[in-house]
């Protein structure tokens, strides 16, 4: 028990130690958290009327952002899988970074869902035994299960790896028998959360833009692009600011995954756009609204073309070796573009335009309110705060700077770390 307490203490004290840039980053997140506490209070007391949502466009930016967090959370397995399935030694050692990203992003997604709910105080109604879960009929009940299980799997994985490394007993023979099955289950579970999230949307036959079989494929490819884009940025920052060794081959593998996820995404978009636009039935209405506007309502049009341009542009850019190996300039820029393009795709292409025309033919533009914006920033700031702090502490453990005193006898030799 004492070991656990000293683990938590050492972890926290290392996680909150840093340079000026580190504190500036944390403080800017704290700013959004503080503002968000106020705006969240307004939403909790006045209801969702403070957001831009209406009966016509019933999903707000919280839901759109939730889908994006599911993207990144699912894609974190792309760091874990090469290590554990293809035995890439370099990736196996940093697999825990992927699991941390998954854990934090699932938690962020669940927070977004709480903001999406009209009665967050009644969340317990969905818990089996004390409430009633409409299982297996409601797709949202599936999503609740897979998200919470994924969060749990990653929490177990992350804390086990970090603790074992902290006490210096992370060796093949000293690991619990359940550890490997948990890791492999988490790898399988990553795509699962994503497919189920796609089905939550695709199950609504009346939202014709979502009622398509390519939706899970679009989600998985966008996950494959946005998740590794974030992870590449984390790897590059880690290389720059810490002593942790992350080799270029690991980054190159992530870059390849981003490039070809975008490549397949091009095909998915082409397939969807062709299938919808060639016959141009009512299924095409919301896509045409998105692309060209409707009778003067063209709020989404620049976002649509901007996002498509950014995605195509980054795909082409990543085909050049010069960009892929420009680790200090073009690669992080491209990753940022991919990350934000897919983030913006969620509200501006996937969610908001899909509601027009409504079942009774209404076209509605969605305008995000200031309170809603700060609530979204609140959840993101919370997410990135935890991500930063947990990653920082984890890096301390991975580099051997944070060790239990009984483990100090061992040299901080990372070579022994692999299982």
């Amino acid at each position: 028990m004492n070991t656990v307490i000293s683990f938590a203490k050492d972890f926290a004290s290392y996680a909150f130690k840093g340079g000026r840039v580190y504190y500036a980053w944390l403080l800017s997140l704290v700013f959004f958290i503080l503002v968000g506490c106020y705006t969240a209070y307004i939403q909790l007391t006045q209801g969702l009327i403070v957001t831009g949502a209406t009966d016509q466009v019933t999903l707000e930016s919280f839901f759109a952002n939730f889908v994006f967090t599911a993207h990144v959370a699912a894609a974190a397995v792309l760091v874990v899988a090469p290590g554990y399935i293809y035995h890439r030694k370099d990736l196996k050692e940093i697999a825990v970074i992927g699991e941390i990203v998954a854990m934090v992003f699932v938690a962020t997604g669940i927070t977004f869902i709480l903001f999406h709910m009209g009665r967050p105080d009644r969340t317990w109604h969905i818990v089996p035994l004390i409430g009633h879960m409409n299982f297996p009929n409601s797709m949202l009940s599936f999503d609740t299960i897979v998200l919470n299980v994924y969060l749990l799997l990653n929490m177990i994985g992350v804390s086990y790896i970090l603790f074992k490394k902290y006490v210096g007993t992370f060796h093949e023979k000293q690991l619990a028998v359940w550890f490997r099955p948990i890791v492999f289950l988490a790898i399988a579970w990553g795509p699962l959360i994503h497919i189920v999230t796609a089905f939550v949307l695709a199950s609504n036959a009346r939202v014709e833009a979502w009622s398509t079989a390519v939706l899970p494929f679009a989600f998985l490819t966008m996950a494959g692009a946005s998740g590794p884009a974030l992870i590449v940025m984390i790897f590059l920052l880690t290389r720059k600011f810490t002593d942790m060794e992350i080799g270029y081959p690991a980054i190159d593998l992530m870059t390849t995954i981003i490039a070809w996820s975008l490549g397949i995404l091009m095909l998915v978009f082409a397939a969807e756009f062709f299938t919808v636009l060639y016959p141009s039935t009512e299924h095409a209405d919301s896509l045409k609204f998105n692309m060209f506007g409707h009778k003067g309502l063209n709020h989404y049009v620049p976002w649509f073309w901007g996002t498509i341009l950014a995605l195509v542009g980054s795909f082409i850019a990543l085909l050049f070796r010069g960009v892929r190996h420009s680790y200090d300039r073009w690669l992080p820029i491209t990753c940022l573009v991919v990350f934000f393009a897919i983030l913006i795709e969620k509200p501006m292409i996937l969610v908001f335009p899909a509601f027009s025309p409504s079942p009774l033919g209404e076209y509605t533009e969605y305008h995000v309110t200031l309170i809603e914006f700060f609530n979204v920033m609140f959840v993101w700031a919370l997410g990135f705060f935890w991500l930063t702090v947990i990653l920082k502490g984890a890096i301390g453990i991975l580099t051997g700077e944070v060790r239990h005193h009984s483990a100090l006898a061992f040299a901080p030799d990372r070579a022994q770390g692999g299982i």
Partner: protein
Amino acid sequence: MSEEKNIALKESDEPDGLEQGRREFLKKVCASSVSALVAAPAVAGANTEADNPDADVTVAEYFQGHFLLMSDEEKKQAIARLEKRYSAQYRKKTTVSDVEAPDGVLFGYALDISKCIGCRRCVHACVKENNQSRHDPTVQWIQVMKMPKGNISFTAENLDKGYPAKSEFGDYGVQVGGNAYKTAGLSTEDAQNYYNDDVVPDKDFFYMPVQCQQCEKPPCVKACPVRATFRDHAGVVLIDYNWCIGCRMCQLACPYHARRFNWGEPNLPAEEMNPKTHYFGNRPRMRGVMEKCTFCVQRTREGRDPACMEACPVGARKFGNLLDPESDVRKVLATKRVFRFKEEFGTYPKFFYYIG
């Protein structure tokens, strides 16, 4: 045909009338400084009035289970709690019924679109009967679509136009006619849902009111993660407002835009509140829950007709038991040209439209 008789809308149907009422209401609220009206049940505990019955009520209400699964004793307590809270909040004796649907009945509705004149009296009767929020958010369970009659969209000048156009490469024949891309007849595409005419019916248009279609295979019930919405044994889809978590999956699933969400605390003036309520029907709702047409469950379970049907000045609406061959609905189904709205969604509505 009744369309020839133009009916002028009364003053009270105009938005101005509502505006007036709201201002008066606000004045009264300010004067009497009763906070119970605007206070959310969740924050009612902060109310310091000595005779405030809400404090204990709110906590008990929070922990209550799904109404259908309660024991008779729990149901009685839940009803008593609600009656106490509503009576205090709206300053009038309010009853909350939980009368069951009659056996051997399947409720159905039929609406004659050739008779409807678009006066929206059904909409306002519904709002009044069912205690909807009057403003911020404005909640109306019936939405009337005003659609242009088909014969006005074709023009002779478009005869030679179209695609592909004649060019120096030759005339390959028009494959898409110049009069394409215009809707005709019953289509939601050019429907006006917010028309504000002085006189109805407008002679170039026809009207189609849409409300909950009470599907036999309701996609909303399937989508609800907590079973807060369900189909009762008379075929009506209902909501337990105290069990709804406000996730709006049902609204996403509904192909008829029938469900309305309480985006904010409902604004229901005490003097306009209808005190004869039903647990699953017109009792006042709270912020953050879904609501929709219940075929006026508080009336129809007691053998009365829905408010929208009573309000219709042209007799376009028929309601009754689909299992009874002598009911109006069954007679309509047997003798008129009947269709279901959006039958391609496979929801099997028990709300029928017909051409009389």
